[in-house]
């Protein structure tokens, strides 16, 4: 256990460092831009407003709200304090709803949609990739070009095509939203069913994209491992094929786990755009609303939450990896 502790501590420290950096970037990037953000916001909000003193009052109010008149460091401390208390300010576009409230109502949609989809896609993709490497011939010949094509398909393109075929054309599934537009969220079978039906298209569009990329990766890893010396040696030793394949796939799997940790950010980005296509009430759609409504606090909070989600997911996968990969135990216990 001692070896693991070192590994986990190391990962934990990295997690915290990246978290702080992401936090600083989230704070500083919008403030690095030339010009006065409050002036820009005021200009957007007060479009068409005649009275000069009114504009000035709005400006002062926002300047007070964001504390832009204070020195940078003080602003940062204030920002940290607020975020720690879950206070992201008030939304512009859905005034006077607090941003934290909007985020809280959309985050679970995203979490429940994306992570199961990515994991299912990863599992199916790896199985197919391993099979392609092992079976070769026909299966590989069909699967590989299809995987390459699917994985290069833009996430939103896949979403649109599924939507048009199954939503608009065949009318099997609804085309937009997270549940029926005539419903109020409650705990009833009817509502649950509506949620499940609305879930299908976004879910499968993310899964399909993930399958392609993972299958390609797993296939090359498996081919690489199948040609490794230890496989030949095992064959000479007369070990059964089934057992060798067990070794091979275990070894090929490990880089795929790391690969998942590293690519989860990109996948989440693509899935956020897919959410927009389906008007799924998650963070992607919230972000779109933020952009459309010039809602700076909402965008800032949404990006921070997405970063936090991705960082946590990466951290979890790395912890899991520590348990699966025996080399980590060996390396750390030296």
């Amino acid at each position, binding site marked *: 256990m001692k070896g693991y502790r070192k590994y986990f501590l190391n990962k934990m420290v*990295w997690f915290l*460092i*990246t978290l702080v*950096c*992401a936090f600083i*970037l*989230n704070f500083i*990037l*919008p403030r*690095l*831009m030339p*010009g006065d953000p409050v002036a*820009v916001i005021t200009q957007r909000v007060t479009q068409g407003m005649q009275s000069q003193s009114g504009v000035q009052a709005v400006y002062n109010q926002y300047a007070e709200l964001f504390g832009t008149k204070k020195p940078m460091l003080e602003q940062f401390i204030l920002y940290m304090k607020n975020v720690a208390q879950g206070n992201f300010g008030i939304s512009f576009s859905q005034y006077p709803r607090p941003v934290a409230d909007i985020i809280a109502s959309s985050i679970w949609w995203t979490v429940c949609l994306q992570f199961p989809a990515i994991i299912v896609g990863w599992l199916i993709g790896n199985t197919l990739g391993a099979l392609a490497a092992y079976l*070769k011939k026909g299966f590989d010949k069909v699967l590989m070009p299809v995987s*390459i*094509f699917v*994985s*290069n*398909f*833009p*996430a*939103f*393109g896949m979403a*649109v*095509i599924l*939507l*048009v075929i199954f939503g*608009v054309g065949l009318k099997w599934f609804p*085309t937009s939203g997270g549940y029926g537009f005539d419903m109020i969220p409650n705990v009833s079978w009817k509502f649950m069913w509506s949620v499940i039906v609305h879930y299908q298209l976004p879910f499968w569009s993310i899964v399909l994209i993930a399958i392609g990329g993972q299958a390609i990766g797993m296939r*090359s890893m498996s*081919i*690489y491992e199948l*040609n490794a010396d230890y496989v030949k040696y095992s064959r000479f030793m007369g070990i059964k094929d089934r057992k060798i394949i067990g070794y091979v796939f275990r070894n090929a799997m490990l880089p795929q786990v790391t690969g998942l940790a*590293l690519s989860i*950010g*990109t996948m*989440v*980005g*693509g899935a*956020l*755009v897919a959410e*927009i*296509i389906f008007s799924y009430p998650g963070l992607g759609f919230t*972000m*779109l609303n933020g*952009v*459309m409504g010039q809602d*700076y606090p909402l*965008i*800032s909070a949404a*990006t921070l939450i*997405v*970063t936090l989600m*991705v*960082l946590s997911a*990466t951290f979890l996968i790395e912890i899991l990896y520590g348990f699966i990969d025996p080399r980590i135990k060996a390396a750390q216990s030296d």
Partner: protein
Amino acid sequence: MKHTIQQVFRSGKFLFGFIVFMTLLLITIVYPLIIRNAPLQIIGQGTFFPPGIYVNVYDSIGSPPYTLNLTDAAANRIASKLSNEDRLAMQEWLVADGISESQIDISDTKTLLDQWENNYDPTLNIAGMTLAKKRYYQRLNASLKGILSTEGAIIATNNPQTGALDETDTVTQSDYVNINQVPNVRVLPLGTDNFGRDVLTELVSALATSLKIGFVAGTVATLIGLTLGLLAGYIGGLVDDIIMFITNIFTIIPTFVLLILISYSIGQEHRGAFTIAVVIGLTSWVWTTRAVRAQVVSLRNRDHVNLSKLSGHSIVHIIVADILPYIASYVVMALILQISSGILAEAGLSILGLGPKTTEVPTLGLMMNWAMIYQAHVLGKWWAYFPVIVTIALITFSMNLMNTGLDQVFNPALRD
């Protein structure tokens, strides 16, 4: 070098990807030379005109008529006005009116119309028929008037003196014009978009812009990645630690989030296609850095590099002459991938509404964004979004195919 290139082009995957990519590139160069329409010019008054050949009606009346006696002309004319659904609806009404179903043959247009003419009464109330349905029959009845007439249409002009209409010409049902003799014909192979712009011209221009964005983003990312990777890998020590620290952080922070933050901060007015490309490049160098560094670390202590060091060559010389050739293949592959992911990143940003500003150039992402905002996918206007998706998929597909091909050439372990 020559041998390597020969080898690369012998790879089927690479060649196929290369041909697809080059075809796309050629289209963006040749198409504007032949068809010189401005890509963002609004030509259609209205949204989403379907694909087809648009012939000017006024000019075709003025063009010399040719008489062609085609037997199926009347049938086609009626069929275009009287769809199968309408026929079924007519049968339904007639049956409800009391005519037995066996007497009605919906494929026999003439008898069906006769039966309709004789029996239909717009004022008749049929039990259980909704008002909407009743109105539908009234509209249908109105549209059927004169459907079987064999007389031509009269062309008249307004006489400015008397204010009366003077007959100038008649168009008979067997008149045809030769499309080559009509002065104004516009072919819209992909129809028009929500603003009434020619989708194909726009698409080609968007493809060119998106490719440029991809190239700029890819070049920026690869240059940064290469420089940092070389520095970290070759110099090592503290420089390596610092660069890898930054790289590790940016690996985990999702680039999409950074892109959103930066694009939003730049603001709509300053977001040109070039700016977006540079921003994408600035946020996607991480992978190249990691890979280049890993390769350089393994090369650093090879004999030929050590020999070069002993001979007193400068660091620049060693990097250029002894290290770069070994990682060149990798860098090219990374560049290809960066270009395709740059194009995808632009599209993703544009759909979020954070793409390049909309007034100057179309990009593939912007076209997608417009189609989505105007609900083209729900309305069934496939020509507004489907060609865009296919184009994006073709670019990324061809580039990844090239990449896979190169990978197999340079990395023998992956060969089948």
